[in-house]
């Protein structure tokens, strides 16, 4: 059995726009903040042993923050266009060995893709933040090797 942890060195990251996939070649760190959570509560008289379920943060989107190095200029331009036009794209994480994946579907880029560190030539280093309410997780052991 494979666990649910993604191993950085065998995972692909990128985004899909109009059915075309664009890979991020150099990804330093990825932080996922999936905020949805369910909790139990009950009346203060403490009689109810099962409790009542309530959901937290339904109005807050989940976010994926990706530190990308050496992002080519043309891909940065595409991302900037997506940001400006509030275009919906899918940010994906795929384990190349097992096929496990997490997709932030219908996401927007929530901050303008600006370079925070000076890189060499026409490549950019930046943090990209994807926001989505439509998280598709496919976590299973699908290895064929």
């Amino acid at each position, binding site marked *: 059995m494979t666990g649910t942890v993604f191993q950085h060195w065998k995972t692909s990251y990128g985004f899909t726009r109009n059915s075309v996939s664009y890979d991020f070649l150099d990804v330093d760190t990825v932080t996922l903040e999936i905020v949805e959570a369910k909790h139990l509560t009950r009346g203060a008289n403490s009689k109810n042993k099962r409790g009542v379920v309530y959901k937290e943060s339904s109005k807050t989107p989940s976010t994926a923050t990706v530190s990308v190095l050496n992002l080519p200029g043309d891909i940065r331009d595409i991302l900037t266009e997506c940001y400006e036009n509030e275009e919906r794209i899918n940010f994906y994480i*795929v384990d190349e060995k097992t096929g496990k994946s997490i997709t932030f579907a219908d996401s927007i880029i929530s901050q303008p893709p600006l370079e925070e560190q000076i890189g060499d030539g026409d490549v950019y280093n930046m943090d990209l933040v994807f926001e989505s309410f439509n998280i598709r997780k496919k976590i299973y052991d699908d290895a064929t090797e």
Partner: protein
Amino acid sequence: MGKNRDTLLEYVIPIEVVEPVGEADLNYVKQVLVVVKPLNDQTELNKITPCNTNGEVTALTAAPVGAMLDYMPEVYILPQKSIDLTSAENIDAFKFFTVLIDKAFTTAEIEAANFGDFKDVKGICTSDRDLATVWARVKNQVAFMDLEENTGRNFYMAFGNLLGNRDWENQQFIEMDEPAYTNDVNVANVLFNARISFALSSEQFGNRLAFFAVGGKAIIAPYILEIVNVKMQARSLNWIYLNKPQYTLREAKLMEDDIQTMLDEDFVETYLIPYATVLCSLGLAGTTKNFVVYLDGDIAEPTALWRVYAKLTQGGNTL
């Protein structure tokens, strides 16, 4: 063929354009072929004629097929003395997903019908309840009960509304022109239980389509399934064409995600089906590890709500 672009420009900057392959043509899903008895001895038999006006229909047959043209732009008419799609000489020139058999054909003629390799939706209109009961049990078949004295106009109105509307809807209780098959609740219940389509007359609301189903399923089910199939094929082709993928699990998963996006946007979020899930995987051990990706889909059946069985308890506190 004339050359539009300048030679120097083409030499210095050759541009390769990659465009999506485009949407699949789904018009045939809404096209219908109606097999009718010929108007007279001069009517040409075994030849499909596309008709856009009621005048074109009445030149071929006395059947009220023109009722469909109130809702849709075109119907294909095939005049025949006995039902045999294989003898229609120009059938290859037309694409359609529904074949309707006019009410003028007898039970014996319907039972002897030859549909060739046509496997999609087949509808009959009949006043023979035994025939309707048997016919309605079979996958992709619609049996519409109608009065002996009716022309079958209600049958064509039901299909015209289904296929001519912008949205796929189950046509619950739409108004019908001709007298309904029954005004009796017991008869209606028997027909409903046998999944036979029929109209019901009510003192207050007139003649209404009271049930419309295909092979025991919601009437829209085979149409939606066909559209899902074709859209999945087109999306996969488009994705492969645009991304030129290698044979890796990563690529299979990206294609899976793209197809999933299409299913969610086109079918689940529009409430046509409650859920659709796809899974793309590479060949299993022992199979060729090249060229072919395996796609497994789990797609809910489109359904329809027609009736409410209610129970009221007065004075109790049972809820």
